[in-house]
Protein backbone atom coordinates (compact mmCIF):
# COMPACT_ATOMS: atom_id res chain seq x y z
CA UNK A 1 0.00 0.00 0.00
CA UNK A 2 1.36 3.38 -0.94
CA UNK A 3 0.61 6.79 0.33
CA UNK A 4 1.84 10.26 -0.22
CA UNK A 5 1.94 13.44 1.68
CA UNK A 6 2.68 17.05 0.98
CA UNK A 7 6.24 17.72 1.92
CA UNK A 8 6.29 20.00 4.95
CA UNK A 9 7.72 22.84 2.92
CA UNK A 10 7.47 25.40 5.62
CA UNK A 11 11.14 24.83 6.23
CA UNK A 12 13.76 25.40 3.68
CA UNK A 13 14.84 21.96 2.55
CA UNK A 14 11.44 20.51 1.99
CA UNK A 15 12.45 17.18 3.47
CA UNK A 16 14.29 16.19 6.64
CA UNK A 17 15.59 12.98 8.17
CA UNK A 18 13.71 13.65 11.40
CA UNK A 19 10.46 13.88 9.45
CA UNK A 20 11.15 10.62 7.62
CA UNK A 21 12.02 8.86 10.87
CA UNK A 22 8.80 10.11 12.43
CA UNK A 23 6.86 8.77 9.46
CA UNK A 24 8.62 5.37 9.73
CA UNK A 25 7.66 5.22 13.39
CA UNK A 26 4.04 5.48 12.21
CA UNK A 27 4.54 2.73 9.64
CA UNK A 28 5.21 4.86 6.54
CA UNK A 29 8.49 4.16 4.81
CA UNK A 30 9.95 6.70 2.45
CA UNK A 31 10.16 5.66 -1.19
CA UNK A 32 10.86 8.66 -3.32
CA UNK A 33 10.35 12.38 -3.79
CA UNK A 34 7.98 13.97 -6.25
CA UNK A 35 7.18 17.57 -7.09
CA UNK A 36 6.21 18.97 -3.74
CA UNK A 37 5.29 15.56 -2.37
CA UNK A 38 6.99 12.62 -0.71
CA UNK A 39 5.83 9.07 -1.53
CA UNK A 40 5.72 6.44 1.21
CA UNK A 41 5.05 2.72 1.44
CA UNK A 42 2.98 1.31 4.25
CA UNK A 43 4.69 -1.13 6.55
CA UNK A 44 5.12 -2.09 10.17
CA UNK A 45 6.06 0.83 12.40
CA UNK A 46 9.72 0.70 13.28
CA UNK A 47 12.61 2.85 14.34
CA UNK A 48 14.55 3.76 11.22
CA UNK A 49 17.45 6.15 10.74
CA UNK A 50 17.40 8.36 7.71
CA UNK A 51 19.87 10.97 6.55
CA UNK A 52 19.41 13.89 4.19
CA UNK A 53 22.76 15.07 2.97
CA UNK A 54 23.79 18.01 0.85
CA UNK A 55 26.68 17.78 -1.51
CA UNK A 56 29.05 20.60 -0.72
CA UNK A 57 28.59 23.76 -2.74
CA UNK A 58 31.89 23.74 -4.58
CA UNK A 59 31.47 20.23 -5.87
CA UNK A 60 27.88 20.57 -6.97
CA UNK A 61 27.82 21.08 -10.68
CA UNK A 62 24.90 22.87 -12.27
CA UNK A 63 23.70 20.13 -14.58
CA UNK A 64 25.14 17.03 -13.02
CA UNK A 65 23.07 13.92 -13.37
CA UNK A 66 22.71 11.10 -10.88
CA UNK A 67 24.71 8.67 -13.03
CA UNK A 68 27.73 10.93 -13.39
CA UNK A 69 31.00 9.48 -12.02
CA UNK A 70 31.21 12.30 -9.50
CA UNK A 71 27.85 11.49 -7.96
CA UNK A 72 28.35 7.75 -8.19
CA UNK A 73 31.60 8.03 -6.22
CA UNK A 74 29.74 9.89 -3.53
CA UNK A 75 26.89 7.37 -3.40
CA UNK A 76 29.27 4.44 -3.30
CA UNK A 77 31.19 5.99 -0.42
CA UNK A 78 27.93 6.43 1.46
CA UNK A 79 26.86 2.87 0.72
CA UNK A 80 30.15 1.46 1.95
CA UNK A 81 29.67 3.47 5.11
CA UNK A 82 26.29 1.83 5.72
CA UNK A 83 23.93 4.33 4.07
CA UNK A 84 21.69 3.15 1.27
CA UNK A 85 20.69 5.79 -1.26
CA UNK A 86 16.93 6.23 -1.77
CA UNK A 87 16.28 9.34 -3.83
CA UNK A 88 17.47 12.86 -4.44
CA UNK A 89 16.05 16.26 -5.17
CA UNK A 90 18.70 18.48 -6.68
CA UNK A 91 21.53 18.73 -4.19
CA UNK A 92 19.63 16.86 -1.46
CA UNK A 93 20.25 13.14 -1.17
CA UNK A 94 18.12 10.88 1.00
CA UNK A 95 19.63 7.78 2.62
CA UNK A 96 18.52 5.10 5.02
CA UNK A 97 20.89 3.46 7.49
CA UNK A 98 21.40 -0.24 6.80
CA UNK A 99 22.70 -0.90 10.28
CA UNK A 100 22.68 0.90 13.58
CA UNK A 101 26.44 1.42 13.69
CA UNK A 102 26.49 3.55 10.55
CA UNK A 103 28.33 6.78 11.37
CA UNK A 104 26.31 9.99 11.05
CA UNK A 105 26.53 11.53 7.60
CA UNK A 106 28.20 14.72 8.81
CA UNK A 107 30.69 14.61 11.65
CA UNK A 108 32.92 17.64 11.09
CA UNK A 109 31.49 21.11 11.76
CA UNK A 110 33.82 22.76 9.26
CA UNK A 111 32.80 20.41 6.45
CA UNK A 112 29.15 20.77 7.41
CA UNK A 113 29.44 24.52 7.26
CA UNK A 114 30.91 24.33 3.76
CA UNK A 115 28.04 22.12 2.57
CA UNK A 116 24.99 23.51 4.26
CA UNK A 117 25.40 27.23 4.86
CA UNK A 118 25.73 28.21 1.18
CA UNK A 119 22.50 26.34 0.57
CA UNK A 120 20.79 28.18 3.41
CA UNK A 121 22.01 31.55 2.22
CA UNK A 122 20.94 30.84 -1.33
CA UNK A 123 17.49 29.86 -0.14
CA UNK A 124 17.21 32.95 2.02
CA UNK A 125 18.18 35.20 -0.87
CA UNK A 126 15.61 33.57 -3.13
CA UNK A 127 12.93 33.95 -0.48
CA UNK A 128 13.81 37.62 0.05
CA UNK A 129 13.71 38.22 -3.70
CA UNK A 130 10.29 36.55 -3.82
CA UNK A 131 9.13 38.71 -0.93
CA UNK A 132 10.37 41.82 -2.68
CA UNK A 133 8.67 40.79 -5.89
CA UNK A 134 5.37 40.08 -4.20
CA UNK A 135 5.57 43.25 -2.10
CA UNK A 136 6.34 45.53 -5.00
CA UNK A 137 3.65 44.04 -7.22
CA UNK A 138 0.75 43.24 -4.92
CA UNK A 139 1.70 45.97 -2.46
CA UNK A 140 1.97 48.53 -5.22
CA UNK A 141 -1.57 47.70 -6.22
CA UNK A 142 -3.23 47.07 -2.91
CA UNK A 143 -1.69 49.31 -0.32
CA UNK A 144 -1.54 52.70 -1.96
CA UNK A 145 -4.83 54.30 -0.91
CA UNK A 146 -5.49 56.30 -3.98
CA UNK A 147 -5.34 53.22 -6.13
CA UNK A 148 -9.04 52.81 -6.39
CA UNK A 149 -8.78 49.45 -8.11
CA UNK A 150 -7.70 47.82 -4.84
CA UNK A 151 -10.97 48.59 -3.14
CA UNK A 152 -12.97 47.27 -6.02
CA UNK A 153 -11.27 43.89 -6.20
CA UNK A 154 -12.66 42.83 -2.89
CA UNK A 155 -11.79 40.18 -0.32
CA UNK A 156 -10.41 37.59 -2.72
CA UNK A 157 -7.34 39.62 -3.59
CA UNK A 158 -6.82 40.66 0.00
CA UNK A 159 -7.07 37.10 1.32
CA UNK A 160 -4.79 35.83 -1.41
CA UNK A 161 -2.14 38.42 -0.70
CA UNK A 162 -2.45 37.86 3.06
CA UNK A 163 -1.83 34.13 2.62
CA UNK A 164 1.10 34.73 0.30
CA UNK A 165 2.80 37.08 2.73
CA UNK A 166 2.08 34.77 5.67
CA UNK A 167 3.68 31.89 3.83
CA UNK A 168 6.72 33.91 2.81
CA UNK A 169 7.25 35.42 6.24
CA UNK A 170 7.03 31.99 7.89
CA UNK A 171 9.59 30.56 5.51
CA UNK A 172 11.96 33.48 5.77
CA UNK A 173 11.67 33.41 9.55
CA UNK A 174 12.39 29.70 9.65
CA UNK A 175 15.46 29.99 7.43
CA UNK A 176 16.81 32.89 9.49
CA UNK A 177 16.21 30.99 12.71
CA UNK A 178 17.88 27.91 11.28
CA UNK A 179 20.94 29.89 10.19
CA UNK A 180 21.26 31.48 13.62
CA UNK A 181 20.85 28.15 15.40
CA UNK A 182 23.31 26.35 13.14
CA UNK A 183 25.93 29.08 13.41
CA UNK A 184 25.63 28.93 17.17
CA UNK A 185 26.12 25.16 17.24
CA UNK A 186 28.97 25.29 14.73
CA UNK A 187 30.76 27.95 16.75
CA UNK A 188 30.65 25.52 19.67
CA UNK A 189 32.20 22.83 17.48
CA UNK A 190 29.01 20.80 17.23
CA UNK A 191 27.09 19.49 14.27
CA UNK A 192 23.68 21.19 14.50
CA UNK A 193 20.83 18.91 15.36
CA UNK A 194 18.28 18.59 12.64
CA UNK A 195 14.78 19.71 13.31
CA UNK A 196 11.75 20.52 11.29
CA UNK A 197 8.63 22.48 11.88
CA UNK A 198 6.11 19.88 12.92
CA UNK A 199 3.23 21.48 11.10
CA UNK A 200 0.28 19.18 10.59
CA UNK A 201 0.07 18.04 6.99
CA UNK A 202 -3.49 19.27 6.70
CA UNK A 203 -2.38 22.74 7.76
CA UNK A 204 0.30 22.84 5.09
CA UNK A 205 -2.09 21.48 2.50
CA UNK A 206 -4.81 24.02 3.28
CA UNK A 207 -2.35 26.92 3.47
CA UNK A 208 -0.49 26.19 0.27
CA UNK A 209 -3.36 24.95 -1.85
CA UNK A 210 -5.68 27.69 -0.65
CA UNK A 211 -3.00 30.28 -1.26
CA UNK A 212 -2.39 29.02 -4.75
CA UNK A 213 -6.06 28.93 -5.68
CA UNK A 214 -6.81 32.35 -4.25
CA UNK A 215 -3.75 33.84 -5.87
CA UNK A 216 -4.70 32.44 -9.25
CA UNK A 217 -8.29 33.58 -8.86
CA UNK A 218 -7.31 37.07 -7.82
CA UNK A 219 -4.85 37.46 -10.68
CA UNK A 220 -7.55 36.35 -13.11
CA UNK A 221 -9.93 38.81 -11.48
CA UNK A 222 -7.46 41.65 -11.76
CA UNK A 223 -6.61 40.97 -15.36
CA UNK A 224 -10.11 40.04 -16.49
CA UNK A 225 -8.93 36.68 -17.81
CA UNK A 226 -11.40 33.85 -17.13
CA UNK A 227 -10.28 31.52 -14.37
CA UNK A 228 -10.53 28.47 -16.60
CA UNK A 229 -8.09 30.09 -19.00
CA UNK A 230 -5.99 32.04 -16.56
CA UNK A 231 -5.14 29.18 -14.19
CA UNK A 232 -3.35 26.94 -16.69
CA UNK A 233 -1.94 30.05 -18.33
CA UNK A 234 -0.34 31.25 -15.11
CA UNK A 235 0.96 27.77 -14.31
CA UNK A 236 2.46 27.60 -17.79
CA UNK A 237 4.12 30.97 -17.24
CA UNK A 238 5.56 29.73 -13.97
CA UNK A 239 6.93 26.56 -15.58
CA UNK A 240 8.43 28.58 -18.42
CA UNK A 241 10.07 30.87 -15.90
CA UNK A 242 11.59 27.89 -14.08
CA UNK A 243 12.80 26.40 -17.36
CA UNK A 244 14.33 29.74 -18.28
CA UNK A 245 16.05 29.89 -14.91
CA UNK A 246 17.56 26.44 -15.38
CA UNK A 247 18.60 27.23 -18.95
CA UNK A 248 20.40 30.39 -17.91
CA UNK A 249 22.17 28.53 -15.12
CA UNK A 250 23.47 25.95 -17.56
CA UNK A 251 24.45 28.66 -20.05
CA UNK A 252 26.43 30.44 -17.38
CA UNK A 253 28.11 27.22 -16.27
CA UNK A 254 28.93 25.62 -19.60
CA UNK A 255 29.39 28.47 -22.04
CA UNK A 256 30.30 31.48 -19.96
CA UNK A 257 32.34 29.41 -17.48
CA UNK A 258 30.94 31.26 -14.54
CA UNK A 259 31.43 30.02 -11.02
CA UNK A 260 28.64 28.09 -9.35
CA UNK A 261 27.49 31.24 -7.59
CA UNK A 262 27.68 33.30 -10.76
CA UNK A 263 25.59 30.74 -12.65
CA UNK A 264 23.01 30.77 -9.85
CA UNK A 265 22.73 34.55 -10.03
CA UNK A 266 22.39 34.42 -13.79
CA UNK A 267 19.52 32.00 -13.30
CA UNK A 268 17.82 34.52 -11.03
CA UNK A 269 17.87 37.13 -13.81
CA UNK A 270 14.32 36.40 -15.07
CA UNK A 271 12.92 36.92 -11.58
CA UNK A 272 14.84 40.14 -11.15
CA UNK A 273 13.57 41.42 -14.49
CA UNK A 274 10.07 40.43 -13.43
CA UNK A 275 10.47 42.47 -10.25
CA UNK A 276 11.52 45.49 -12.24
CA UNK A 277 8.90 45.02 -14.91
CA UNK A 278 5.98 44.58 -12.56
CA UNK A 279 6.86 47.21 -10.01
CA UNK A 280 9.29 49.91 -10.96
CA UNK A 281 8.02 50.62 -14.45
CA UNK A 282 4.38 51.07 -13.37
CA UNK A 283 5.58 53.40 -10.62
CA UNK A 284 7.45 55.51 -13.16
CA UNK A 285 4.52 55.52 -15.57
CA UNK A 286 2.20 56.45 -12.76
CA UNK A 287 4.33 59.45 -11.91
CA UNK A 288 4.04 60.56 -15.49
CA UNK A 289 0.33 59.80 -15.66
CA UNK A 290 1.05 57.52 -18.53
CA UNK A 291 -0.44 54.29 -17.24
CA UNK A 292 -2.72 52.75 -19.81
CA UNK A 293 -6.31 52.76 -18.74
CA UNK A 294 -8.96 50.41 -19.87
CA UNK A 295 -11.09 52.34 -22.29
CA UNK A 296 -14.82 52.27 -22.26
CA UNK A 297 -17.14 54.00 -24.64
CA UNK A 298 -19.92 55.90 -22.89
CA UNK A 299 -23.41 54.80 -23.89
CA UNK A 300 -25.11 56.66 -26.71
CA UNK A 301 -27.18 59.69 -25.82
CA UNK A 302 -25.26 60.59 -22.72
CA UNK A 303 -24.56 64.24 -22.29
CA UNK A 304 -22.20 65.90 -19.89
CA UNK A 305 -23.71 68.19 -17.34
CA UNK A 306 -20.71 69.82 -15.96
CA UNK A 307 -17.19 68.61 -15.88
CA UNK A 308 -15.96 67.98 -12.43
CA UNK A 309 -12.74 68.24 -10.61
CA UNK A 310 -9.35 66.74 -10.48
CA UNK A 311 -9.26 64.49 -7.51
CA UNK A 312 -6.00 65.46 -5.98
CA UNK A 313 -2.73 64.23 -7.22
CA UNK A 314 -3.68 61.49 -9.64
CA UNK A 315 -4.88 63.72 -12.36
CA UNK A 316 -8.20 61.95 -12.42
CA UNK A 317 -11.27 63.80 -13.45
CA UNK A 318 -14.79 62.72 -12.91
CA UNK A 319 -17.28 63.49 -15.58
CA UNK A 320 -20.88 63.34 -14.56
CA UNK A 321 -23.40 62.26 -17.10
CA UNK A 322 -27.01 61.54 -16.67
CA UNK A 323 -29.98 60.34 -18.58
CA UNK A 324 -33.63 59.99 -17.89
CA UNK A 325 -33.38 56.59 -16.30
CA UNK A 326 -32.38 57.97 -12.93
CA UNK A 327 -28.90 56.75 -13.35
CA UNK A 328 -25.73 58.64 -13.63
CA UNK A 329 -22.43 57.15 -14.52
CA UNK A 330 -19.14 58.60 -13.55
CA UNK A 331 -16.12 58.34 -15.72
CA UNK A 332 -12.54 58.91 -14.91
CA UNK A 333 -10.23 60.45 -17.37
CA UNK A 334 -6.49 60.35 -17.10
CA UNK A 335 -5.29 63.81 -17.70
CA UNK A 336 -3.69 64.20 -21.05
CA UNK A 337 -4.55 60.74 -22.27
CA UNK A 338 -8.08 61.29 -23.42
CA UNK A 339 -9.02 57.85 -22.21
CA UNK A 340 -12.00 57.19 -20.04
CA UNK A 341 -12.78 54.38 -17.70
CA UNK A 342 -16.09 53.51 -16.17
CA UNK A 343 -15.81 53.81 -12.47
CA UNK A 344 -19.14 53.53 -10.83
CA UNK A 345 -22.84 53.77 -11.30
CA UNK A 346 -24.74 56.06 -9.01
CA UNK A 347 -28.41 56.11 -8.34
CA UNK A 348 -29.80 59.59 -8.31
CA UNK A 349 -33.42 59.05 -7.37
CA UNK A 350 -32.87 61.14 -4.30
CA UNK A 351 -31.22 64.00 -6.07
CA UNK A 352 -34.35 65.99 -6.68
CA UNK A 353 -35.39 66.04 -3.05
CA UNK A 354 -31.90 66.80 -1.91
CA UNK A 355 -31.37 69.60 -4.36
CA UNK A 356 -34.72 71.16 -3.50
CA UNK A 357 -33.80 71.13 0.12
CA UNK A 358 -30.36 72.41 -0.64
CA UNK A 359 -31.47 75.13 -2.99
CA UNK A 360 -33.92 76.55 -0.52
CA UNK A 361 -30.96 77.20 1.64
CA UNK A 362 -29.21 78.35 -1.44
CA UNK A 363 -28.04 81.74 -0.31
CA UNK A 364 -24.97 80.05 1.06
CA UNK A 365 -23.78 79.14 -2.36
CA UNK A 366 -25.74 81.67 -4.37
CA UNK A 367 -24.16 84.40 -2.40
CA UNK A 368 -20.85 82.75 -2.74
CA UNK A 369 -20.89 82.73 -6.46
CA UNK A 370 -22.81 85.87 -7.08
CA UNK A 371 -20.26 87.69 -5.11
CA UNK A 372 -17.61 86.22 -7.29
CA UNK A 373 -15.74 84.58 -4.47
CA UNK A 374 -13.69 81.74 -5.73
CA UNK A 375 -12.26 80.15 -2.76
CA UNK A 376 -12.03 76.66 -1.56
CA UNK A 377 -13.58 76.01 1.77
CA UNK A 378 -14.65 73.18 3.96
CA UNK A 379 -18.32 72.25 3.97
CA UNK A 380 -20.36 73.93 6.66
CA UNK A 381 -22.03 72.06 9.44
CA UNK A 382 -25.38 72.50 7.70
CA UNK A 383 -24.14 70.95 4.51
CA UNK A 384 -22.56 68.04 6.33
CA UNK A 385 -25.60 67.14 8.35
CA UNK A 386 -28.38 67.68 5.84
CA UNK A 387 -26.78 66.90 2.56
CA UNK A 388 -24.43 64.14 3.55
CA UNK A 389 -21.43 66.06 2.36
CA UNK A 390 -18.19 64.50 3.47
CA UNK A 391 -15.76 66.71 5.16
CA UNK A 392 -12.46 67.07 3.53
CA UNK A 393 -13.87 66.72 0.05
CA UNK A 394 -12.76 70.16 -0.92
CA UNK A 395 -9.26 69.59 0.28
CA UNK A 396 -8.62 67.67 -2.86
CA UNK A 397 -9.01 70.83 -4.87
CA UNK A 398 -5.64 72.07 -3.90
CA UNK A 399 -4.63 73.41 -7.23
CA UNK A 400 -7.27 76.09 -7.42
CA UNK A 401 -8.43 74.99 -10.81
CA UNK A 402 -11.74 73.59 -9.68
CA UNK A 403 -14.16 74.73 -7.08
CA UNK A 404 -16.80 72.89 -5.17
CA UNK A 405 -20.30 73.78 -6.25
CA UNK A 406 -22.83 71.43 -4.78
CA UNK A 407 -23.23 67.83 -3.79
CA UNK A 408 -26.12 65.43 -3.62
CA UNK A 409 -25.63 61.87 -2.49
CA UNK A 410 -22.52 60.61 -4.22
CA UNK A 411 -22.47 63.24 -6.88
CA UNK A 412 -20.41 66.36 -6.60
CA UNK A 413 -20.58 69.28 -8.97
CA UNK A 414 -17.67 71.59 -9.50
CA UNK A 415 -16.95 74.61 -11.56
CA UNK A 416 -13.88 75.26 -13.57
CA UNK A 417 -11.64 77.92 -12.15
CA UNK A 418 -12.39 81.37 -13.39
CA UNK A 419 -15.94 80.50 -14.22
CA UNK A 420 -18.72 81.95 -12.15
CA UNK A 421 -22.37 81.02 -12.43
CA UNK A 422 -25.13 83.44 -12.00
CA UNK A 423 -28.06 82.41 -9.91
CA UNK A 424 -29.98 81.64 -13.08
CA UNK A 425 -27.29 79.36 -14.37
CA UNK A 426 -27.08 77.64 -11.04
CA UNK A 427 -30.81 77.10 -11.06
CA UNK A 428 -30.66 75.64 -14.56
CA UNK A 429 -28.02 73.11 -13.54
CA UNK A 430 -29.99 72.09 -10.51
CA UNK A 431 -33.22 71.93 -12.55
CA UNK A 432 -31.69 69.49 -14.99
CA UNK A 433 -30.77 67.17 -12.20
CA UNK A 434 -34.22 67.48 -10.68
CA UNK A 435 -35.84 66.63 -14.03
CA UNK A 436 -33.57 63.62 -14.36
CA UNK A 437 -34.51 62.50 -10.90
CA UNK A 438 -38.18 62.69 -11.72
Amino acid sequence: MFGWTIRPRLYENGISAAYLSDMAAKGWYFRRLGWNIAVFRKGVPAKVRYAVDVMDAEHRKVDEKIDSPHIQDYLQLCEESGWKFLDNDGALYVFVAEHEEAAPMQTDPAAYKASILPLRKGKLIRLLLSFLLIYLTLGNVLWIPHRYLAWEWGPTVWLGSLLIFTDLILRIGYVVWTIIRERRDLSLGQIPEESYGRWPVWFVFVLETGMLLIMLTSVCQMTGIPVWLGTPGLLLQFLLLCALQEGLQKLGWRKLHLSREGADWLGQLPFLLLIIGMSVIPMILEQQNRLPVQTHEPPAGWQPVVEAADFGWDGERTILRYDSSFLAQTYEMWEGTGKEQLRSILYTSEIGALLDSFYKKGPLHGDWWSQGRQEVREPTELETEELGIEEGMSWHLGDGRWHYLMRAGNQVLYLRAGQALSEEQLATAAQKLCEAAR
Partner: protein
Amino acid sequence: MAREQYQSLTEQMYYILLALLEPRCGVDISARAKQVSRGRIQIGPGTLYTLLGKFEGEDMIRAVYSEGRRRYYQITGKGRYMLQKEYERLQLLVEEGRIYLEEQDK
Protein backbone atom coordinates in the same frame (compact mmCIF):
# COMPACT_ATOMS: atom_id res chain seq x y z
CA MET B 1 37.17 26.62 4.64
CA ALA B 2 38.60 25.26 7.83
CA ARG B 3 40.19 27.45 10.37
CA GLU B 4 41.76 30.15 8.29
CA GLN B 5 43.09 28.32 5.30
CA TYR B 6 44.37 25.24 7.06
CA GLN B 7 46.49 27.10 9.58
CA SER B 8 45.09 24.51 11.95
CA LEU B 9 43.14 21.40 11.17
CA THR B 10 40.05 19.98 12.77
CA GLU B 11 40.30 16.54 14.33
CA GLN B 12 38.57 14.95 11.38
CA MET B 13 40.98 16.57 8.90
CA TYR B 14 43.98 15.59 11.00
CA TYR B 15 43.05 11.91 11.15
CA ILE B 16 42.16 11.77 7.45
CA LEU B 17 45.59 13.05 6.56
CA LEU B 18 47.17 10.61 8.98
CA ALA B 19 45.27 7.75 7.38
CA LEU B 20 46.45 8.85 3.94
CA LEU B 21 50.11 8.51 4.76
CA GLU B 22 49.48 5.25 2.91
CA PRO B 23 47.22 4.87 -0.12
CA ARG B 24 43.67 4.22 1.00
CA CYS B 25 40.16 4.47 -0.40
CA GLY B 26 37.07 6.02 1.12
CA VAL B 27 35.70 3.61 3.71
CA ASP B 28 39.21 2.41 4.59
CA ILE B 29 40.12 5.98 5.52
CA SER B 30 37.25 6.13 8.01
CA ALA B 31 38.19 2.72 9.41
CA ARG B 32 41.84 3.67 9.81
CA ALA B 33 40.98 6.97 11.46
CA LYS B 34 38.76 5.14 13.93
CA GLN B 35 41.49 2.61 14.63
CA VAL B 36 44.23 5.20 15.19
CA SER B 37 41.98 7.23 17.48
CA ARG B 38 40.97 4.05 19.36
CA GLY B 39 37.34 4.44 18.38
CA ARG B 40 37.08 8.07 19.40
CA ILE B 41 36.89 9.59 15.94
CA GLN B 42 34.06 8.67 13.58
CA ILE B 43 34.13 10.20 10.12
CA GLY B 44 30.81 10.31 8.35
CA PRO B 45 30.68 9.69 4.60
CA GLY B 46 29.34 13.15 3.87
CA THR B 47 32.17 14.74 5.79
CA LEU B 48 34.74 12.40 4.25
CA TYR B 49 33.58 13.13 0.72
CA THR B 50 33.62 16.88 1.31
CA LEU B 51 37.06 16.88 2.90
CA LEU B 52 38.61 14.58 0.29
CA GLY B 53 37.38 16.97 -2.36
CA LYS B 54 38.75 19.96 -0.48
CA PHE B 55 42.14 18.34 0.15
CA GLU B 56 42.42 17.28 -3.46
CA GLY B 57 41.54 20.80 -4.56
CA GLU B 58 44.21 22.21 -2.26
CA ASP B 59 46.74 19.69 -3.55
CA MET B 60 47.17 18.15 -0.14
CA ILE B 61 46.21 14.69 -1.38
CA ARG B 62 46.00 13.11 -4.81
CA ALA B 63 44.36 10.08 -6.34
CA VAL B 64 47.03 7.47 -6.97
CA TYR B 65 45.04 4.66 -8.55
CA SER B 66 41.57 3.18 -8.93
CA GLU B 67 40.10 -0.27 -8.48
CA GLY B 68 36.78 -0.31 -10.24
CA ARG B 69 34.81 2.52 -8.70
CA ARG B 70 37.14 2.85 -5.72
CA ARG B 71 39.66 5.66 -5.84
CA TYR B 72 42.73 5.43 -3.69
CA TYR B 73 44.24 8.60 -2.30
CA GLN B 74 47.54 9.43 -0.74
CA ILE B 75 48.90 12.48 0.95
CA THR B 76 51.17 14.81 -1.07
CA GLY B 77 54.25 16.70 0.00
CA LYS B 78 52.19 19.75 0.75
CA GLY B 79 49.71 17.68 2.73
CA ARG B 80 52.53 16.07 4.69
CA TYR B 81 53.92 19.53 5.46
CA MET B 82 50.55 20.73 6.72
CA LEU B 83 50.15 17.58 8.79
CA GLN B 84 53.60 18.03 10.27
CA LYS B 85 52.86 21.65 11.12
CA GLU B 86 49.66 20.64 12.85
CA TYR B 87 51.45 17.88 14.75
CA GLU B 88 54.07 20.37 15.97
CA ARG B 89 51.40 22.87 16.91
CA LEU B 90 49.58 20.27 18.95
CA GLN B 91 52.85 19.21 20.59
CA LEU B 92 53.51 22.81 21.51
CA LEU B 93 50.06 23.13 23.00
CA VAL B 94 50.59 19.98 25.06
CA GLU B 95 54.07 21.03 26.20
CA GLU B 96 53.11 24.55 27.21
CA GLY B 97 50.04 23.21 28.90
CA ARG B 98 52.09 20.68 30.79
CA ILE B 99 54.56 23.32 32.03
CA TYR B 100 51.85 25.66 33.16
CA LEU B 101 49.74 22.98 34.82
CA GLU B 102 52.74 21.55 36.67
CA GLU B 103 53.56 25.04 37.96
CA GLN B 104 50.02 25.39 39.19
CA ASP B 105 50.24 22.06 41.00
CA LYS B 106 53.36 23.14 42.88
